[in-house]
């Protein structure tokens, strides 16, 4: 693993840098802890249900400090993994160390008590103390500090998460997003050695989310502790993640930099998670070692089958594969393009046109149906409408060969 590439120039997302009202409030900056913290994780854990089904987690990974995104379908085992680190779930077997401090080791018989693990954990269901005010919830984890310092820290974090006006309220009187911010504040204020965030921003509106992401990035820069961050939002992955860990059914199926893992997924499930709009069954029909490409037939067997060129891979001729192509990587032209470096130019008919969030999703039938993402401006200037004859241009490297997973439906 390399140190964070993205976090090297982390700039605020939105809103904050604008000229709007208040100045950005930085997260509390602790006395610089320069040592390099890291998380070394290995655990096996099984659940067996009343109904006899079993879920088993079997995960091994090591990450340096910084934000690691946990990505995976619902039920993949993300929360269970966090539970193992926090000491709330006990693996049958495993070894978990944070910054060379062993928290759990089934062989050595080490199982550090939950309360001594110095873990910051924002639960998926928050678990705010219903009988304590916002302020007292946040204060809960702060001990052994003199009163002034404690007040200072609490004041800072309440400001930072914009919940200072709610400080006297009970959690029952807060909205969902307000509660989420309190939970975040509560876990950060203790300055933990490892931070576990289970979808901490899911109930927040974009501007609030952006501001808190800024704060988290700043926090991460200042503290350099391992942070595991569960999210289903691709946006958050790219905005925050130094690296991604993709889980499926209790296993790590991919890990690395966000753009490597999600930008060029090698498993179908990852591709689905990453939002590859175009996924095709295909068969390798020719291998061109000299060109560094292979020819691949989409929808083999069907009369409408088409061939495209894909990057060379260690794979047998006539193997069944799957091809994933991001809708944003496909170029569309209304006149036949010439003199292009791209090898894949497909002719087709525009079938539907759908506006989405400042983008237009266009479907083009080239034998198989492709989804193509365009800007509204491009759409207008090309005067696209259903029925148009169009050409699609696919760069070879935009065609991702995916290992089919055992079962396409991942849950």
């Amino acid at each position, binding site marked *: 693993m390399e140190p964070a590439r993205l976090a090297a120039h982390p700039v605020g997302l939105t809103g904050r840098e604008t000229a709007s009202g208040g100045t950005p409030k930085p997260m509390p900056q602790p006395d610089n802890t320069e040592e390099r913290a890291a998380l070394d994780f290995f655990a096996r854990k099984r659940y067996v249900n009343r109904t006899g089904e079993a879920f088993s987690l079997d995960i091994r990974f090591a990450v340096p400090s910084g934000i690691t995104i946990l990505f995976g379908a619902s039920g993949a085992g993300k929360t269970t993994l966090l539970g193992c680190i926090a000491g709330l779930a006990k693996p049958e077997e495993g070894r978990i160390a944070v910054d060379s401090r062993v928290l759990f080791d089934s062989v050595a018989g080490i199982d550090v008590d939950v309360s*001594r693990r110095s873990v910051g954990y924002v639960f998926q269901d928050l678990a705010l103390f219903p*009988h304590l005010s916002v302020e007292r919830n946040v204060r809960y984890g702060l001990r052994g500090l003199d009163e002034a310092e404690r007040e200072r820290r609490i004041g800072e974090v309440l400001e930072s998460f914009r919940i200072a006006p709610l400080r006297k309220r009970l959690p*029952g009187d807060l909205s969902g997003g307000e509660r989420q911010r309190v939970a975040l504040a509560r*876990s950060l204020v203790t300055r933990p050695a490892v931070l576990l965030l289970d979808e901490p921003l899911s109930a927040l509106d974009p501007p609030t989310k952006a501001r808190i992401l800024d704060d988290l990035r700043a926090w991460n820069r200042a503290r350099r502790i391992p942070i595991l961050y569960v999210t289903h939002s691709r946006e958050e992955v790219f905005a925050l993640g130094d690296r991604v860990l993709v889980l499926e059914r209790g296993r790590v199926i991919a890990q690395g930099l966000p753009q490597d893992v999600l930008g060029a997924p090698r498993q179908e499930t990852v591709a689905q998670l990453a939002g590859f709009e175009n996924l095709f069954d295909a068969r390798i029909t020719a291998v061109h070692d000299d060109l560094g490409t292979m020819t691949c037939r989409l929808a083999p067997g069907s009369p409408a089958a088409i061939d495209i060129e894909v990057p060379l891979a260690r794979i047998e001729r006539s193997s069944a594969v799957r091809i994933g192509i991001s809708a944003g990587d496909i170029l569309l032209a209304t006149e036949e393009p010439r003199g292009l470096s791209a090898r894949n130019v497909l002719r087709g008919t525009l079938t539907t046109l759908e506006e989405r969030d400042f983008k237009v999703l266009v479907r083009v039938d080239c034998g198989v149906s492709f989804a193509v993402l365009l800007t509204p401006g491009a759409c207008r200037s090309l005067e696209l409408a259903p029925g148009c004859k169009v050409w699609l241009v696919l760069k070879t490297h935009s065609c991702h060969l995916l290992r089919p997973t055992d079962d396409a439906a991942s849950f």
Partner: protein
Amino acid sequence: MNWQALALTLRLSLITAGSLLVIGLPLAYWVAFSRRRWKFLLQTATSMPLVMPPTVLGFYILIAFGSSSPLGRLYQRWTGHTLAFTFTGLVVGSILYSLPFAVQPLVNAFVSIDPRLIDASRVLGASRLRTFFRVILPLSASGIATTIALTFAHTFGEFGVVLMVGGDIPGVTRTISIDVFDLVEAGRYGQANITSLVLLAVSFTVLALVYWWNRRAWPRTPWA
């Protein structure tokens, strides 16, 4: 109206209720959170004092206090007198007698706490003890109120055990309930009625205060 007996009873009930809270909390904690498969047996055992007729229970307590029991002899050697017929003995007897009410409501309160809150507390670095005092206890307010109310009331109206263990000594072990009983036995119904009313009034006030306090605990309904 026997005010001395009333004062004595109040004192006895308050001490018993307080002691039972102190005893009941760890017991209930264990029953609620232990992973032992047989813990329900302990739970059952704590209910057993209820099953004995009070005078019979009192009789067995008396035997345990007496010179034929090792415990009783030990105490006698240590203090020079028997536990029976003393206020302390009365407290011990009442505690045993009301034990079931101390444990069960607390167990219920404990098990109905969202375990995620306990997890949250522990993750935030709180020891089990701190978690107990800062999270479990405050969230068990209604269980605690019930325990206090029931043990207080039960001791206030206690009679069989008190009679047996206390020996009805004025100012030391004669409680207001014995007084009422004596009055009824002696056929002094008028006086018995008055005493009963006072007894009811006093305990009603105490219990009403307890329940009223509990009513003001943090609310559970988010909808106004």
